[in-house]
């Protein structure tokens, strides 16, 4: 019948109203949500198996990064739904989630209340009552010992500027390009989240809400940043190397690892967007969250590599979805280099010392003529971000 061609029923449950597309077949909202949930739960189950230390039913305590973007908002929603589902069963361990938003707006002093981020975090907190939420100001990253601050162009506190936000702002001003700023900011947020997760010994893992698409973009972004060596650590699930430095001397004190997992790693960005459209309450929490990476390019000077990559993958996700998954799988297969070698003071990944001697791409005239020793502690990509 011609009428049935126009509105095919859901291929899974045969419900009449099937407005969504899942792998080119019509799907209803419920089935779509279930598909997303299944993909998510599989990764959570894997994570649980990886990090649990006892066969007893201990609560699963995770720290979740929350940027208020679609993916991390969906992650909180998925965690919430899963917790409800699990709550009915007595045979599974309970969840204890601490969601953290890092407020990167340096124009507010760290003590101020009612910043847009704090208003949003209260919205989340009111909606997801059994999770804890915290809004942390980026300036707190200066107390983090997992960054070798002596390797970064951070003004010294005794140099007349002691206010943390101001020091950070001055450091960002010194960075050579928009790409560098975006790159360093991303790394600092990761450090801050890791630091909070590690300091509170209850929490076992850091969850980040990257989708397949954003992991692919992150992979290629790191390739373009010259940080190919770091990719297996940056995009794979598992223990991330952390080095703790003495804040005064920059000397290495201790080395450890901490697990980072991406539970949305098997969902495309488009699928997450559809999931959000199934549950309007997610978008309602953050009404301003509508802009995508597809906004027209105004100036290449003000664009970062991160944005270029995000835009590229947004454009290829529909016609070539296969490649998006390919990138994540391919980079996931790369080895992680021996972790006993010295590590980069900013991105935390093992330094590829032989790589610098092998590298014949530059004649050496681009390097800092003063030969500042602090830069030897950074990897090729981080040097590029700090020095240009």
């Amino acid at each position, binding site marked *: 019948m011609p009428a049935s061609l126009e509105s095919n029923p859901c291929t899974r449950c045969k419900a009449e109203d099937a407005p969504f597309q899942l*792998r*080119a077949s019509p799907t209803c909202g419920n089935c779509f949500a279930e598909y997303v949930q299944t993909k998510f739960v599989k990764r959570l189950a894997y994570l649980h198996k990886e990090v649990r230390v006892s066969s007893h039913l201990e609560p699963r305590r995770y720290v979740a990064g929350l940027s208020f973007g679609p993916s991390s908002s969906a992650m909180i929603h998925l965690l919430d739904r899963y917790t409800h589902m699990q709550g009915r069963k007595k045979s599974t361990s309970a969840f204890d989630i601490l969601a953290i938003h890092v407020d990167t707006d340096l124009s507010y002093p760290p003590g101020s209340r009612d910043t847009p981020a704090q208003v949003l975090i209260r919205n989340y907190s009111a909606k997801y009552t059994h999770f804890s939420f915290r809004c942390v100001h980026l300036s707190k990253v200066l107390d983090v010992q997992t960054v070798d601050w002596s390797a970064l162009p951070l003004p010294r506190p005794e140099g007349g500027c002691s206010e943390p936000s101001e020091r950070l702002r001055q450091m960002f001003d010194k960075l050579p*390009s*928009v*790409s560098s700023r975006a790159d360093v900011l991303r790394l600092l947020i990761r450090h801050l989240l890791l630091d909070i997760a590690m300091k509170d010994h209850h929490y076992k893992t850091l969850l980040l809400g990257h989708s*397949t698409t954003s992991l692919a973009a992150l*992979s*290629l972004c*790191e*390739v*373009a*940043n*010259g*940080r*190919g*060596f770091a*990719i*297996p650590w940056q995009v794979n699930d598992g223990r991330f190397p952390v080095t703790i430095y003495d804040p005064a001397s920059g000397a290495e004190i201790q080395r450890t690892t901490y697990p980072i997992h991406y539970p949305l*790693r*098997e969902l495309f960005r488009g699928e997450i967007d559809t999931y959000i459209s199934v549950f309007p309450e997610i978008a309602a929490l953050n009404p301003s969250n509508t802009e995508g990476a597809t906004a027209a390019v105004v100036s*290449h000077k003000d*664009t*970062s*590599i991160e944005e*270029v990559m995000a835009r*590229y993958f947004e*454009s*290829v996700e529909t*016609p*070539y*979805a*296969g*490649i998006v*998954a*390919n*990138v*994540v*799988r*391919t*980079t996931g*297969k*790369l*080895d*992680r*280099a021996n972790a006993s070698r010295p590590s980069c003071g900013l991105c935390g990944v093992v330094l*590829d010392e032989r*790589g610098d001697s*092998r*590298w*014949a*791409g*530059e*004649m050496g005239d*681009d390097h800092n003529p003063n030969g500042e020793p602090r830069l030897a502690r950074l990897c*090729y*990509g981080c040097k*590029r971000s700090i020095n*240009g």
Partner: protein
Amino acid sequence: MPPTPCVRCHEQRAVVKRPKNHQKLCRECFISIFEDEVHHTITSSKLFYPGERVAIGASGGKDSTVLASVLKTLNERHDYKLDLVLLSVDEGIKGYRDDSLETVKRNATQYEMPLKIVGYDELYGWTMDQVVETIGKKGNCTYCGVFRRQALDRGAKKLDIKHVVTGHNADDVAETVLMNLLRGDLARLSRSTNIVTGDSLSDVKRSKPLKYAYEKEIVLYAHHKKLDYFSTECIYSPEAFRGTARSLIKSLEKVRPSAILDIVRSGEDMGELTPDKVQASCACDDGGMGSCGSGAQKEAALKRDSHTEKLETEIKLNKSIEPTDVVKLPIRAKPGKQTNGTTTGALPSLGKCIKCGYMSSQSMCQACTLLETLNKNRADIAI
């Protein structure tokens, strides 16, 4: 506004803004710094030995013309003692290759180098024009790419030369790194950034001395040296998918000029991290370089697989590479050894083509497989 002086010699007027780092240089300084950098690449990776006979893969395009010119200059200046020969492949594309070959012939006299041209028609019995007539415009780059790589090797063998240099530039290498990541081709990823491809097993080694040179700088060099080169795109369509990688590189370069070099560096580093660093490969490929290879087929496969069943599954070798109408030759299975390309994950091992003896990871090399399909169709047409 007064003219900006060159940042290097501080005397001449700067006429070039280097695409690589936006340094403002005069003509002489730009030419000398470009040559110095190629010299640095050659010496730091010990590409040549004194007295070596080297064939320059010359297409008449900007890259190979600049390569020939720079190598001639450096050979004289730094006394490499190289015996340089131009080696061209005639694909048999009217309105494109015949014109560019004229350029190569002029280059041969300009640079006083002997020139050898090998044609697809004499090697394979097919010109590209005939191939396109038979199979259509779609996917013909696959044929051309496979044939060209073998043709270069065979040409070099005819000249008894063991080293072919090609004009691949940093943009090409960066593009290949991205392409191999997008295709999920780990084996090629580990090879594509090597400056020298082909290993001890193969008779002819191939290298890319312009690996670190930006495409834009190559154009500028050709312009300021007033080199005679041919600049027309191939009349048969290029791959659409490679095009997206190329435009991605270009937009990255606009955002941060060093990005191209950074991608090359990342590619080299990732090559060190590939789990199974087996260098053996079918030599009809140099890491997926150039606008050739099985890209068109991969592209079709990517489109088809766009709704991947499970993201966590292994990538399966694309079976469609082998045409269905080819009679499969019996292969004796050796324990512990791979029989053909159907095993997933593991890298293929190197053997010899049973038909032409050219190195191949399959029982028959790609060129012979493709030829078989072509010849079969030709027989049909003849009837």
